[in-house]
């Protein structure tokens, strides 16, 4: 019974000072991600070259993540891999967000027929399991970086499109939009002057939250062998190679890169959630 007493009402009144902690969390996340990125970009490629005197070393001070069977430093490989993931995430998130924005706006503004078509399109893309769709698209592009970026971009817009469409539908019935329409403003005018500013928070949050998905899917598809070429230091490549060396007991080959990926994905998630909290406390749970 104590529990129920403690539970019945969410602590709505205590939420206000979250704003500050939210800001702190956002800054920390951004700093962390920028750190990762610059780490990956600034580290020289020296660690990536084969060094047969340093083969399969356990993690040590010199090589915090150990080295692989070719003597390559796993920390450097991981950092490079994360940078690559970041880049692909960026490309895919940008493309998906753009597609979602265009489709979401069109769907809600361009009349019933456009809406039906777009809703159907969303359903179509959600009809096949995500990963299978990725395999299909990567296959069509014959694998490689283009295939991965195309695959990841082309599979992540449906959810955001739905969200934006719902938001636009709601906004459309708002007074100021109705008045503008009655004043004879064009759809385009309404879309850019009224709707876009209101969609910005949603779009930004959606954009950031696309990263974790895109990154995880890129890693997965690369791991399966459809994505980036084996010569690239992608996390998916590292892990699929590590799998082959697992039975030899080289646990660090898989452990650290995967963990690093997890942390990066989680930080993106935290970043997105906190931006949402900051911009739109109304819809944020908790």
């Amino acid at each position, binding site marked *: 019974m104590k529990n129920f007493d403690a*539970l019945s009402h969410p602590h709505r009144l205590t939420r206000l000072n979250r704003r500050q902690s939210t800001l702190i969390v956002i800054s920390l996340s951004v700093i962390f991600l920028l750190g990762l990125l610059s780490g990956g970009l600034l580290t020289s490629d020296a660690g990536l070259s084969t060094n047969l005197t340093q083969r399969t070393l356990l993690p040590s001070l010199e090589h915090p993540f150990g080295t692989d069977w070719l003597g390559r430093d796993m920390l450097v490989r991981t950092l490079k891999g994360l940078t690559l993931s970041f880049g692909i995430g960026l490309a895919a998130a940008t493309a998906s967000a753009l597609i979602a924005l265009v489709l979401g706006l069109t769907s809600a503004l361009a009349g019933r027929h456009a809406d039906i078509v777009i809703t159907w399109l969303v359903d179509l893309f959600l009809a096949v399991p995500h990963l299978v769709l990725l395999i299909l698209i990567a*296959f069509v592009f014959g694998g490689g970086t283009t295939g991965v970026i195309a695959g990841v971009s082309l599979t992540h817009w449906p959810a955001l499109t739905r969200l934006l469409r719902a938001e636009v539908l709601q906004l459309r019935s708002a007074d100021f939009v109705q008045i503008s329409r009655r004043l004879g403003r064009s759809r385009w005018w309404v879309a850019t002057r009224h709707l876009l500013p209101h969609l910005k928070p949603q779009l930004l949050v959606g954009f950031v939250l696309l990263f974790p998905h895109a990154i995880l899917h890129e890693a997965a598809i690369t791991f399966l062998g459809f994505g980036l070429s084996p010569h690239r230091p992608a996390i998916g490549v590292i892990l699929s190679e590590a799998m082959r060396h697992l039975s030899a007991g080289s646990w660090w080959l898989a452990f650290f890169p995967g963990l690093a990926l997890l942390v990066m994905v989680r930080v993106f*998630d935290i970043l997105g959630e906190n931006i949402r909290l900051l911009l739109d406390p109304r819809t944020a749970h908790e």
Partner: protein
Amino acid sequence: MLLFLAGKTLRLLTLLVAVTALSFLLLSYSPIDPVRAYVGADMLKVGPEQWARIAEHWGLDRPPLERFTRWSLAVLRGDLGISMIFRRPVLEVISERFLASLALMLTAWIFSGVFGFALGVIAGMRQGTWTDRLIKWFCLMLASTPSFWLGLLMLMVFAVWLGWFPVGLGVPAGVLAHEVTLADRLNHLILPALTLSIIGVASVALHTRQKLVDVLASNYVLFARAKGESGLRLFWRHGLRNIALPVITLKFASLSELFGGSVLAEQVFSYPGLGQAAVQAGLRGDVPLLLGIIIFSALFVFTGNLAAELLCNLIDPRLRLKGNSFEKL
């Protein structure tokens, strides 16, 4: 209800046709030469003439539209073609592989459902406490975990270090498929199923927790407490009743993720299921098999969604008894 089913079926049909046509179209533009899939390792032994003859045999020299018409007519007769890498009918490969995947997915589906629900209920009942925070943290971490990496960790711990399970290979090497015992199968099922279950826990637990928190903050729970109900009794009477359906619905509606997860898990554990077949078909350019799997997976996802909606309509009195209110008494 009949109308509802008819509508759904119609929607499925349009979607299936579109998925099929689109996939076929896309696949026919792939730079990967399907003949290579057929030829496989014999690549060097096959001359250009032979290559052309193989292409002709498969009808690959025809224009895409003709191939599509021919293929779809065959599909309508229930013939999905021959898998190039398995050299067996696609339907046969799929049904065999799907049974294996089904065992895997079903186990994971049930376990992740049960444990996720339990965790979500515990967290929701203790909202704001350390227990809740711990469970939430754990689930959010899990949600960010690459499932294939978790699989690798499992392999590392249970297969390499502890040696409890074989490293890879769905069936013991050198043993004919039909000689594989049930125990063998189970042995190979455990790790991938465990991995998939753990990954699946996160979304169920978080969803359950959120639903329970909402329910506990509702007016009817406040009133139930005013009527003297509390603790487990309150949960049993009002909590469970109101969160069960949304959670079960979520489970059915998320078969798409389950399928994707099983593709990865099967790859990590070399489990001979449909997901592994999909990966092989994709990597080696087995277009008929890939197409078959795409269609099948769409059916699979659709079945889940349909089941979710049907369940809601059958169980939720607000939907079931719509229009059947006091006037009809």
